[in-house]
């Protein structure tokens, strides 16, 4: 297994690293969010921060997984997995948001800001991983 901070030299290592680092960062943001949420809104704030971070981790991870799995398939399969995964993800997200919207133990602003922080953190991890990667230009 590659070290968390080593430079990935192939696509498999890159996606493994991104998924690992994204999950760790999401957990760190969730911890921070739970603390802030508890100070701001008590227990609903903590629960909302956890849910927000979990949603962001799952959705960022699904994107990386769909490209990783799709990349091993022929071109048609790749297209189907990446775009099909995107549709499933958005529909799932709308359903989750619809279900959570009127739930009593949700503190909206805490959930929203934890979600946004986790998404932006995940994007930073993705961009840094790609910039650091040393993937050969030509496949073997």
């Amino acid at each position: 297994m590659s070290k968390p901070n080593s430079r990935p030299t192939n696509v498999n290592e890159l996606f493994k690293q991104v998924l690992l680092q994204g999950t760790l960062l999401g957990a760190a943001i969730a911890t921070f969010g739970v603390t802030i949420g508890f100070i701001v809104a008590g227990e609903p704030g903590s629960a909302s921060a956890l849910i927000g971070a979990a949603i962001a981790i799952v959705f960022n991870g699904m994107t990386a997984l769909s490209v990783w799995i799709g990349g091993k398939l022929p071109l048609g399969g790749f297209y189907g997995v990446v775009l099909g995964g995107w549709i499933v993800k958005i529909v799932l997200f709308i359903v989750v948001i619809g279900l959570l919207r009127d739930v009593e133990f949700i503190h909206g602003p805490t959930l929203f800001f934890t979600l946004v922080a986790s998404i932006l953190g995940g994007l930073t991890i993705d961009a840094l991983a790609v910039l650091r990667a040393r993937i050969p230009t030509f496949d073997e």
Partner: protein
Amino acid sequence: MENTLIVADLASLGYGLAAIGPGIGVGLVVSKTIESIARQPELASKLQVTMWLGIAFTEALALIGLATPFIF
């Protein structure tokens, strides 16, 4: 009652707008990647990684847009 219905309609419109822009964006990113892979299949892995970064940034907009009901 009428105001509530108007707000509900606007919210539905917001969901649609939050999904349609990134939807077009992701479609363009993927179609261009496939076009590029068809031209130069040996570059596939590099192009897929670049595409994944493009999709991640584009769909972030959709996720943020769809979560806005929590602050309004």
